């Protein structure tokens, strides 16, 4: 019974992936004719090659590969900085309660609900005034800011589950704010870091809007190329290339999930969810 239900549900979840993969391996004529669930009669890797290295964005016909490295360049620092700051926030909120801290936290939580669109323009102005507009630093800042609410919530909840006495012991041992954070708290928060990294990598890697609005073309992430390939409004839709490009773009977060899904669940269980 249980297994039956689970298998049915699993199939429901797998069908889209199956369709994507199958479609990306078909030639265009086959797609036009046939049913999307049918396995490819003739397997072709053409669409993959095209998506990766030939598909055009305007005049640049080097596919997704250029954006891939940009995405890496954006994602790595953004993930590191945003998690670092959010974890410090969570730590300060959980262990060093100071006056007003809860208020700021409440504001952050409300901030989690504000649609990004609202922030788009003021953010442009802010970045302009800071002289960061168009730079990678600016984008990292944007990701840090918008990732902050949920991440801070996760870290705060996690640190609150660590015994208070540990923190006191470290203070008696002469460690300060930073010492405790780096030498006591950080080594103990692997589970929640895994959760945070997975969430942030997924979010930042999949981001399109910020990547394109706040940077210049030389930093455009992979999703911009994906958008260009998928969203082209005129001409023939190359579904197989679209699907291949989609899978390629989603590959990094997917791989991370497949590899560290277990840690993810464990991390969440380790206290991220305790209110």
């Amino acid at each position, binding site marked *: 019974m249980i297994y039956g239900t*689970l298998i049915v549900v699993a199939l429901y979840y797998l069908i889209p992936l199956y369709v994507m993969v199958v479609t990306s391996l078909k030639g265009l004529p086959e797609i036009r004719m046939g*049913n999307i669930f049918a396995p490819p009669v003739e397997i072709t890797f053409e669409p993959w090659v095209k998506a990766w290295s030939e598909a055009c964005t305007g005049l640049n016909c080097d596919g997704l590969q250029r954006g891939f490295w940009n995405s890496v360049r954006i994602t790595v620092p953004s993930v590191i900085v945003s998690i670092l700051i959010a974890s410090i926030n969570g730590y300060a909120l959980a262990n060093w309660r100071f006056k007003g801290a809860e208020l700021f936290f*409440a504001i952050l939580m409300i*901030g989690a609900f504000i649609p990004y669109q*609202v922030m788009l323009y003021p953010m442009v102005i*802010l970045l302009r005034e800071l002289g960061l507009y168009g730079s990678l630093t600016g984008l990292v800042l944007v990701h840090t800011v918008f990732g902050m609410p949920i991440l801070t919530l996760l870290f705060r909840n996690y640190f609150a589950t660590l015994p208070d006495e540990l923190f006191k012991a470290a203070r008696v041992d002469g460690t300060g704010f930073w010492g405790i954070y780096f030498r006591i708290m950080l080594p103990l928060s692997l589970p929640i870091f895994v959760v945070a990294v997975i969430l942030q990598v997924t979010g930042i890697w999949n981001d399109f809007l910020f990547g394109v609005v706040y940077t210049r073309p030389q930093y455009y992430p992979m*999703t911009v190329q994906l958008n260009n390939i998928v969203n082209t409004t005129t001409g023939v839709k190359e579904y197989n290339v679209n699907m291949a490009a*989609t899978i390629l773009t989603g590959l990094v977060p997917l791989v991370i999930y497949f590899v560290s899904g277990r840690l993810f669940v464990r991390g969440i*269980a380790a206290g991220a969810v305790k209110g």
Partner: protein
Amino acid sequence: MAQSNVSGRPFRLFRNLNAKIAAIPMILTALVIFVGFSLWTVVYSFTKSGLLPRQDFVGLMQYERLWSNTKWLISIQNLLIFGICMLVFSFVIGFVLACLMDQKIRFEGVFRTILLYPFALSFVVTGVVWQWLLNPDLGIQSVMRGFGWESFAFDPLNNSRIVMFGVVIAALWQGTGFVMVLLLAGLRGIDDEIWKATRIDGIPTWKTYLFVVVPMLRPVMVTTLVIVTAGIVKVYDLVVAQTNGGPGVSSEVPAKYVYDQMFLNQNLGQGFAASTMMLITVAIIIIPWAYLEFGGRKRG
């Protein structure tokens, strides 16, 4: 050593100075970005800003237009439908799945990964794939008809009355796994002895889940609720990718309305007015909750 012999009370602000310094990014974000930008938005919602923000105040004009705009009214209605469906179904399905996963099943890791992987994909991907699967000429409908079930009709994306449910299906596909994982984590945290107690009391399993376990999951549920609701209010990419608001304007949502007003219609003022309405609604819902959740019990 002599100077360490301080006896006076140090200035309050400088106690735990490092903690306060470390919190500066958070404080700045909260004040400048979330409060400052929101205020900015509210102020400019009273202007006739077009492509660029302009201090050209027109009173409540943008709000009057907003509330007489059918697209906005439809957006609100759609958000309600979407939100309620998402909350109900993602919690119910997520919980049922979490319960199934909690039965010490084999291959738990495999099932969990399968249920969770869509969460790794962007909404754009989800939207595109489900647009496809729900396309009557290519997707599920045509396949079912291909199997000989000629009268089978499942074409939500082209039916303005049920199009939101098509969006909900895709959103559930992407988000339920995450809800499941959060709830599963909560379930795993429940004391084993509670289970034993209910078995001795002879409570059937489903009743135990419903009347004992669910209430105990409150903290997890709250966190999950925050995350899911935040996602619902912000829903944009999915709709754009899957239906682009269509057919007609029947699957418009507020975030898309805001975006379209600001960047397609080049009517920032109107976009800001719509944002302000969203902000107010969110604040009305969240502030009392945040107060209860974080303001009330300051202890430990």
